[in-house]
């Protein structure tokens, strides 16, 4: 890390970057796998799911952080779940109001954000122990990391599986789409491929004596 390690309470660049890179929920922590694989058949779906999760993550972190000193320890999980479910319901209605086509493409996975382990994990591990601003920045980082991961998967699957990106055709007529990519098995394969790529990069930088960079 290039930044000096400040005191625990302070807000550092790492508060944000933790979720984007070091603890990326998709590629490193392997959290919230269900939406990650289910809705990433196209880049648009993946982005919208990422943004919806980001919204729930940030707003629930803010509220939980605000009331963190009021909630007795015994009922904290119940309280967190109620708060998260509220914001998910909110998101559900907002997406319906914005675009029903998108709503039907994402299907039940909007409501399933409730059981996404990232959100409850952040609430428990970070938001319930930190002041609002820090909690929000951390949640923003996590959400951004999740969105990036989803987008990487969605774009890959759309490019190979349909020959398109954001609905625009990329290749000529002779391109035969790899239909398997947009089918369920493709989700597993693409995520595996991304993980392989990362572990390849990691092993490369390790053999080159990785402390020169980073």
């Amino acid at each position, binding site marked *: 890390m290039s930044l000096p390690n400040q005191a625990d309470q302070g807000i550092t660049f790492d508060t944000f970057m933790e979720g984007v890179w070091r603890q990326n929920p998709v590629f490193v922590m392997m959290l919230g796998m269900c939406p990650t694989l289910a809705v990433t058949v196209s880049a648009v779906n993946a982005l919208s799911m990422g943004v919806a999760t980001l919204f729930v993550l940030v707003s629930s972190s803010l509220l939980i952080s605000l009331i963190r000193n009021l909630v*007795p320890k015994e009922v904290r999980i119940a309280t967190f779940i109620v708060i998260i479910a509220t914001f998910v319901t909110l998101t559900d209605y907002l997406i319906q109001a914005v675009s029903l086509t998108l709503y039907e493409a994402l299907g039940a996975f909007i409501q399933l954000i409730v059981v996404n382990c990232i959100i409850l994990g952040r609430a428990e591990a970070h938001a319930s122990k930190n002041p609002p601003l820090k909690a929000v920045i951390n949640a923003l980082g996590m959400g951004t990391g999740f969105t990036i991961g989803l987008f990487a998967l969605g774009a890959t699957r759309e490019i190979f599986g349909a020959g398109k990106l954001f609905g625009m055709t990329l290749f000529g007529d002779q391109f035969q789409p790899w239909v398997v990519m947009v089918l369920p098995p493709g989700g597993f394969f693409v995520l595996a491929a991304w993980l392989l790529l990362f572990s390849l990069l990691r092993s490369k930088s390790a053999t080159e004596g990785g402390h020169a960079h980073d």
Partner: protein
Amino acid sequence: MNQPSQIQTPSGGKMIATMVLVASICGVLIVGAFEGTAGAIAENKRIMLERAVFKVLPGAAGVREYAATAAGIQPLAAGEAVPARGVRFYAAYDAAGVLKGIAAEAGAKGYADTVRVLYGYDTKCQCIIGIGVVSMRETPGIGDKIITDAAFLKNFEALDVRLNSDLSALTNAVRVVKHGTKMNAWEIDAIAGATVTSKAVGRGINDSAQKLLPMLVPHIAELKP
């Protein structure tokens, strides 16, 4: 931490008070969102429905929702549930307010999951003049030919669904036949290589028409303004 060092459980009262506080904040948020977006959602649903109905009944300009039951037909308010044993259908009118046709939903098990289609019924020729897919999870590139295959869609330019003389069932049940063997106006020429999905469409339409039309046709005059 300026609390006494021994472990103490908070009183039940405090726990309940916290939960009530949180629940009321959440309640206000949910109800606010529900009320705030209700208008936009209803508008979106109406636009989607209209778009779907206009696609299967070219020339239509307005849609009204009805339910057909054994006792007759009745208009439905938006979002209202269909009475037991009833069938939901949509009456489409052109710009001058003349009845253009009827649209209804059909569904049957396809290759992967239920294939749901919306079909347009023309009252004058007593035939189906268009279909559109509502939802399906068929294999891309194979099952989804039912929306793209021009030869298959040609089946639905005038698919015969006339009722028999005592108006109790279709004169000829809608049947899906092997590709290239269509002989009659009530048969559907299946897509070669996507027979299961084609058959699901045909079976769904047959089931739905057999149920809806005998209840609807005797009362069709009530739909004309």
